[in-house]
């Protein structure tokens, strides 16, 4: 039941829309089958599977809207959920920011988000992946703790204005932390794909084991400003936070790093190094994502929503260091007389040809960072964030890794970081980020990155 075909989903949605007695209705029908395995102390701790399909209804009368959802699909249940949403809409206060649903949209070709082999992952595959981590770890006096999660699902949406959208996707996420049994070394690796055939848990686990062994007995060096080589996962964490804050309304209201002194926004202004190019593209083959958005926060306007069924298109966010687009939800776009922009489902930053090894060779004195941890906002005005390095931090001197170093706390803004760009390296696909989907982010070398204190944590 969890994965309904386009035709089957459409039939159910048409039936639900047909039950509507309100001014308008929007219905989403989503399903997901997922499985996971978790291990720690070189042993499996939990494993499970889940399956769910749910249907959500939003109806409106004038500027009053109400919602309800259900996971039963007989006619009586479907009609009941519509009536319940209508009752709630009648009780709701008017929302002055209410926006009527969109009419039919042209989404273009379907991005390749669904891969059959991922949809067919079995408990046996998950157990084998865990074992491909645990066995090589235990042979090296290392302890593995990891998590593999896979999912296959569909999303569909229909409204009373004739809009219909449908997509399917698969995904697999794998992370493992390897710790040496003497407690002095730790390594980590993460992989994220739509296509499980690209995942090699043994190869990934080996990288984490090697990092754990190489990071043993780290030396303390003075905190301060360092040239850093950020692996893609480290860079992506800070970039994701910057891109998540590109909301036009907040910038217009003067409460964003994209607000300008004296009023207005930094749209069209250069804010980072001119080599920085960041865009979103649902059809990118490395990080495909659905070419429509289910709303993401207030489908009938207000609250920063993109609007149910809004097309996602290829769109520049930062072009040659200049802010080229802000994210306008449908309400705010209507207030500003501009086109609404859907919240990006993926993020791609153009990279270079340099490998991490090339960048190390080219560094006189610096720090190689595997990943960051516990990143939290310090000042939204300057986009200052704090956090720590973790699971593989190394000192570079005269083009070589000299020794592991103790972890640092940083206080840095991605805006300052991208103004201090030295070199862009090769791109890698990384998981998640605000708004979901995946990102394609290069490794990068940055000068004057601010490490403000040392941590004893391994």
């Amino acid at each position: 039941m969890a994965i309904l075909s386009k035709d089957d989903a459409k039939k159910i949605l048409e039936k639900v829309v047909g039950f509507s007695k309100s001014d308008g209705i929007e219905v989403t029908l989503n399903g997901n089958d997922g499985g996971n395995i978790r291990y720690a102390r070189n042993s499996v701790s939990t494993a499970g599977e889940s399956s769910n399909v749910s249907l959500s209804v939003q109806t409106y009368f004038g500027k009053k809207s109400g919602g309800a959802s259900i996971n039963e699909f007989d006619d009586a249940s479907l009609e009941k959920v519509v009536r319940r949403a209508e009752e709630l809409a009648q009780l709701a206060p008017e929302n002055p920011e209410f926006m009527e649903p969109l009419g039919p949209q042209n989404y273009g070709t379907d991005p390749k988000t669904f891969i059959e082999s991922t949809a067919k992952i079995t408990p046996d595959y998950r157990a084998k992946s865990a074992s491909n981590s645990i066995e090589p770890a235990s042979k090296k006096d290392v302890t593995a703790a990891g998590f593999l999660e896979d999912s296959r699902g569909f999303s569909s949406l229909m409204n009373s204005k004739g809009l219909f959208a449908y997509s399917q996707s698969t995904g697999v996420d794998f992370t493992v932390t390897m710790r040496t049994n003497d407690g002095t070394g730790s390594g980590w690796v993460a992989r994220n794909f739509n296509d499980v055939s690209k995942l090699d848990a043994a190869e990934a686990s080996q990288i984490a084991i090697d990092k754990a062994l190489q990071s043993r007995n780290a030396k303390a060096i003075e905190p301060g400003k360092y040239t850093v080589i950020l692996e893609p996962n480290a860079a992506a964490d800070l970039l994701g936070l910057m891109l998540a804050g590109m909301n036009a309304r907040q910038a217009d209201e003067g409460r964003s790093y994209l607000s300008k002194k004296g009023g207005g926004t930094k749209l069209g202004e250069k804010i980072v190094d001119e080599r920085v190019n960041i865009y979103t593209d649902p059809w990118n083959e490395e990080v495909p994502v659905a070419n429509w958005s289910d709303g993401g926060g207030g489908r009938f306007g207000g609250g920063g929503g993109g609007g149910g069924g809004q097309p996602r298109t290829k769109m520049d966010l930062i072009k040659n260091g200049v802010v080229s687009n802000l994210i306008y939800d449908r309400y705010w776009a209507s207030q500003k007389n501009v086109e609404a922009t859907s919240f990006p489902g993926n993020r791609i930053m153009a990279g270079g040809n340099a490998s991490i090894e090339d960048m190390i060779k080219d560094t006189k004195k610096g720090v190689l960072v595997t990943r960051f941890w516990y990143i939290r906002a310090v000042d939204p005005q300057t986009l200052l964030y704090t956090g720590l390095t973790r699971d593989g931090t190394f000192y570079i001197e005269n083009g070589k890794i000299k020794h592991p170093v103790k972890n640092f706390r940083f206080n840095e803004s991605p805006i300052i970081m991208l103004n201090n760009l030295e070199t862009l390296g090769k791109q890698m696909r990384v998981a998640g980020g605000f708004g979901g989907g995946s990102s394609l982010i290069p490794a990068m070398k940055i000068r004057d990155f601010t490490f403000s204190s040392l941590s004893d944590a391994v």
Partner: protein
Amino acid sequence: MKRRDFIYLTGMGAAASMLPGLPVMGNPIDPAQALERVDVGLKKQLADVALNAARSKGATYTDVRIGRYLNQFVVTRESNVQNIVNTESYGLGIRVISNGSWGFAATDKMDKDSIAKAAETAVAIAKENSRLLTEPVQLAPQKGYGEVSWKTPIEKNGFEVPIKEKVDLLLGVNDAAIKSGANYITSLLFLINEQKYFASTDGSYIDQDAHRIWPAFFITKIDAATGKFETRNTLSAPMGMGYEYLNHRPQDKITGGGGITLYKGRYDMLEDAKAGGAQAGEKLKAKSVEPGKYDLILDPSHLWLTIHESVGHPTELDRVLGYEANFAGTSFLTLDKWESKKFNFGSKIVNFVADKTQVGSLGAIGYDDEGVGCGKWDLIKDGILVNYQTIRDQAHILGLKASQGCCYADNWSSVQFQRMPNVSLQPGKEKKNIDDMIKGVEKGIYIIGDGSFSIDQQRYNFQFGGQLFYEIKNGKIVGMLRDVVYQANTQEFWNSCVEIADSNDYRLGGAFGDGKGQPPQSNSVSHGSSTARFNGINVINTARNIG
């Protein structure tokens, strides 16, 4: 319902980023449905179906949780209601031991066949997992309680209060903040009701009804000319209380340093919003802090988060053992430090107590999610590490004869595991109030409210911000500061604790969104303290220029 779906339904969008974390959400329902209850007799029948089915398939231990998890969110922004959402999640989770291994399955189909099938699946998973078992599960003994019940001692069920009353309150709060200078405000009321039924093969049938409430707001003040802005968040605490938390009384207010009103057990949201609007404006004009060493006077509305991160988390036994190594991290409080009975966690006046019984706290409950009656115990005694937080399958590691009752699942569909109880700093024994403490400081900063927070994966190095910062010079508050965060090492920080105000100043802070596990689960937990002083803490200036 996933966080993404929840943000979608509530229309919270960017406002959701202000929330540190959210519990698992259910499906949207009519508010009136939240007041209906599932009959206890029916729950017992369903639980017995699960227990019997698991036993017949070879389980040597079984527990069943039938959970109905209700949430209500009312969100407003300036003069608009952004959304009102009621959600319900109802289903059954069954956990078994078979062949010495754990297995778990859950279902939202509450007919007897589906429940029996879930039991069968749980046993099958346990048997499958036992193939990879290194040592069999050892459960600490637990007596059956028979048929018992527990309820949060609330005066007024928040779910019974009409939505209009809540909307009127929040719009009034927004109006008060705007009138006192705020440019923008998002305010919300978040109610939780966990109706949990637990049954186990130990012979317990436990019916519990837990209530929690969180009123909150987020104010922004803009200075268009300079392009600068400041925020001021609510000084409320989420509480294990009913709607009475909002029925403020004069005796529940404390006057802090500089004449600021602070709240103890009850909350005057309107008054706080009014003060907040003005303080956001003051923050814009405040002096930027000179970095260096300061003596810090930390208010309980701030200190709870430092306690949560630097004391609550490192004393979780599952972290110490490595079960969280790939996500939340491990802990510097390794077993050898506990075994030595000499590990100097803090100064002699530092005493931390874990307590699942504290009235009004988020973690208060009669029995945990594996049927253990809840209690209270020392974690840090006179500055020394003396204990951890454990559940039934960990108790033997510490040589304990019983679990400490720290097992919790955030939903019927989630596997229960070790979660943090309320962990609180005990008040000072000498009679001392906030003013007495400020008087003794030559060069210091008084911090109120929680702000930015970050700590490493073993809980050594942390950095915290706040909401309001006041400079203390020669025993007096001389003005407001901005751009303040402090950094410290956990053990050095707690050893620098030199004074704690007495029990009259004791207050709770807390959060709904304490996260741990993969897939992640959230836990609600409170942390109490009185105002405390820490000497010679490193303060850095966070001001930057991005053009």
